[in-house]
């Protein structure tokens, strides 16, 4: 079980939250000019990172606010959370082994 820090309410159990995928995906502004492939990339394709991953969470059972979490997808280590609109923190992740090619 993870302990996640809501930027407003403080540290809470994971079961109060739900995760909604990768963060910092901006909707294209030139929507009328997008090709089907570009739309597909925006709607469906995600990075599937091994290591530090920035993702969107919502505090469903608490203040019901959205925020971002930096989490290691390999170790489940949570580095921290930050409010929407804030820049993603830079994180060195020594606890992720090198991906074998």
């Amino acid at each position, binding site marked *: 079980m993870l302990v996640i820090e809501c930027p*407003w309410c403080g540290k809470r159990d994971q079961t109060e939250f739900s995760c909604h995928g990768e963060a910092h995906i901006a909707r294209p502004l030139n929507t009328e000019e997008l090709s089907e492939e570009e739309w597909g990339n925006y709607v469906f394709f995600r990075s599937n990172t091994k290591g530090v991953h920035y993702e969107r969470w919502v505090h469903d059972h608490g203040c019901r606010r959205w925020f971002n979490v930096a989490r290691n997808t390999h170790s489940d280590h949570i580095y921290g959370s930050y409010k929407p609109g804030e820049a993603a923190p830079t994180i060195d992740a020594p606890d992720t082994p090198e991906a074998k090619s």
Partner: protein
Amino acid sequence: MGDQQSDVVNGGEKDVTIKTTSPAYNRQRIEGDNTLIELPWIGKINLRGNAENKRFIEKVAAVVGCALPVEANTQEQHKSITVFWLGPDEWLIHCEIDAVAELMEKIKSDLSSIHHAVTDVSDYYTVLQLQGPDVTALLRKGCPLDLHPEVFKSSHCTQTRFGHASVLLHKLDKSTFNIQIRWSYTEYLWDYLVSAMDAIDR
């Protein structure tokens, strides 16, 4: 419990009586070391606004009679009014059920030039009161919150989870908690707590 209020509403040609029934009307009151009751119907007003706008904070404080809590998980009280912090731009006001309409109007008129939203949610929730020496152990049966008295202190309030239901927990003192829950989840919460009591008594 039972009928909480009878209102006569003008329904066109003849008056229609609408009875509001407690959501826990068919549940037996729990007494013993630990007690569980449903509190008489409380008026509830949801308020949204910008906490960084000083005028908003001041105007609301003037209407409700106490400061608007801007710190997370806190509440403020003045006479029969309690204001709970729900989120960075959201509050819940508890007041007497008969005072709701007047308070709503006062907030609307005093905040008319300030961006805000005010909603009567009196019918949406009900409040149960759990009291006794084992309240913390009982709440731990369904709530993941750290309820240690050094962490969650008397007068603290917070929204959290109990079982599958979202609740607003308000700690009045070390042996008394008010639990605000959605009307339709009341029987679920009630039965969950009664089962928890059975498990603790054994």
